[in-house]
């Protein structure tokens, strides 16, 4: 029984579930191959925050370094440019040095940084893969190939049926569309994987461990209360979006010029939604999206400050 000889509707009733099922199986293979797995690894308190940022991904690492250097005033924002500010401290690590040099010699964009930091990113990747948190090249390749091959074979079957149908002058439009749409799945399956399942669990555990850091970062007005290392860790754990409540939304816009049509409006609005939905705003409370409610500010005078 050759499925290629089947009538259109019969073939589709086989092919559509095969395509969907094949995609899911391919995803599952990808998931299973992201070894090692297991419970979260315990990372000591003094772990390099840049390593944690690298665990999230190279993009996060880059924004964590830029954010930390801006926070420490080693870099500064000049209009739409990132320029150098104060001198680089003597205890700066390699990735900080690379970013600083990048800012000193030209424009700092994410593409430029990706090239300039290629060695530093590789350094962190090696460290993390030695701990089993990130996939090394050896393990990453079959992870991209195998699921793609499995799924690709199913797509080829569909393609073959298209030619068979064309040679017999049968309507093939629907099948062509299906195969084209299905090939988008190859893009998903071909993505470079980063973390192992152990890496996923470790990152998740780190995020739970540092909820207080997240609370502080999204609170707004907290910029001075954190040092550079803590800013880097906040970005590394909770994403570059943390730069916005920390007061560096301009930095984010410079690095991502095409995103977010409206200005700070929607971003800070979404931050108040995140901070309020975490349950610390009451209906009758004087909680605000930014600072504390009973703040004295200047001239609170009298009994006002006596909260």
């Amino acid at each position, binding site marked *: 029984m050759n499925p290629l000889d089947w009538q259109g509707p019969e073939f589709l009733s086989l092919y559509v579930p095969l395509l969907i099922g094949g995609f899911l199986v391919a995803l599952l293979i990808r998931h299973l191959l992201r070894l090692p797995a297991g419970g979260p690894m315990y990372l000591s308190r003094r772990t390099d925050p840049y390593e944690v940022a690298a665990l999230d991904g190279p993009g996060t690492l880059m924004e964590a370094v830029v954010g930390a250097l801006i926070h420490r005033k080693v870099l500064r924002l000049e209009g739409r440019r990132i320029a150098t500010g104060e001198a680089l401290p003597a205890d700066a690590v390699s990735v900080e040095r690379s970013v600083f040099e990048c800012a000193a010699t030209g424009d700092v964009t994410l593409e430029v940084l990706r090239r300039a930091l290629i060695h530093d990113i590789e350094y962190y990747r090696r460290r993390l893969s030695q701990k089993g948190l990130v996939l090394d090249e050896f393990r990453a390749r079959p992870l991209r190939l195998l699921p793609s091959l499995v799924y690709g074979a199913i797509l080829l079957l569909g393609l073959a049926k298209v030619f068979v149908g064309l040679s017999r002058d049968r309507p093939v439009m629907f099948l062509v569309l299906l195969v084209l749409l299905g090939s988008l799945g190859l893009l998903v399956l071909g993505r470079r994987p980063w973390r192992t399942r152990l890496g996923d669990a470790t990152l998740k555990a780190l995020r739970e461990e540092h909820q207080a850091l997240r609370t502080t970062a999204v609170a707004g007005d907290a910029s001075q209360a954190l040092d550079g290392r803590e800013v880097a860790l906040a970005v590394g754990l909770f994403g570059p979006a943390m730069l916005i409540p920390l007061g560096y939304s301009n930095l984010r816009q410079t690095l991502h010029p095409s995103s977010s049509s409206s200005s700070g*409006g929607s971003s800070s609005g979404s931050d108040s*939604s995140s901070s309020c939905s975490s349950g610390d705003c009451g209906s*009758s409370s004087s909680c605000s*999206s930014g600072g504390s*409610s009973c703040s004295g500010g200047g001239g*609170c*005078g009298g009994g006002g400050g006596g909260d």
Partner: protein
Amino acid sequence: MSARTARERLAEAQSALVRSLAQGAPVPAGFNAERVQETARTLLAKRRRRVQRSWPRLTEALGESFRPRFDAWAQENPMELEASPLADGRRFADALLGAGEFPDMAREELLIFELRYHLTGQGLVPRRGLTLRSMRIGSSILLAARLPGGRVLRLRLPF
């Protein structure tokens, strides 16, 4: 003298003082007028700052005119029911809307507030469940939804 009559006398005296502080009524007899007025200014500044913190877009949109407008409104409209800056700001926004002076830049902030809260005669009530709102802003349409659980989603359509 019974405690109840003492409460009544206390209530009367405290009302006079609070009216003087919050609404610019005359300073009651025997008080140091300068100090009471200084406290009244502090109260107003505190109230204004808290509303500014709760309504940053509105503050930005009104710019320099926020302070005089708010201060004028605040004297006529003391806080009642609860000292919530969110509710306070919402009522101020109502006054601006009524006078046709609500700035466009702050409309989105107002929409988001409406998704999360409902201002009633009994005060601020957080919304529950799914709420949908839409608004025309400039040349685009903003659709926003509050999902059960609290998250707010936004979608801008450019037509």
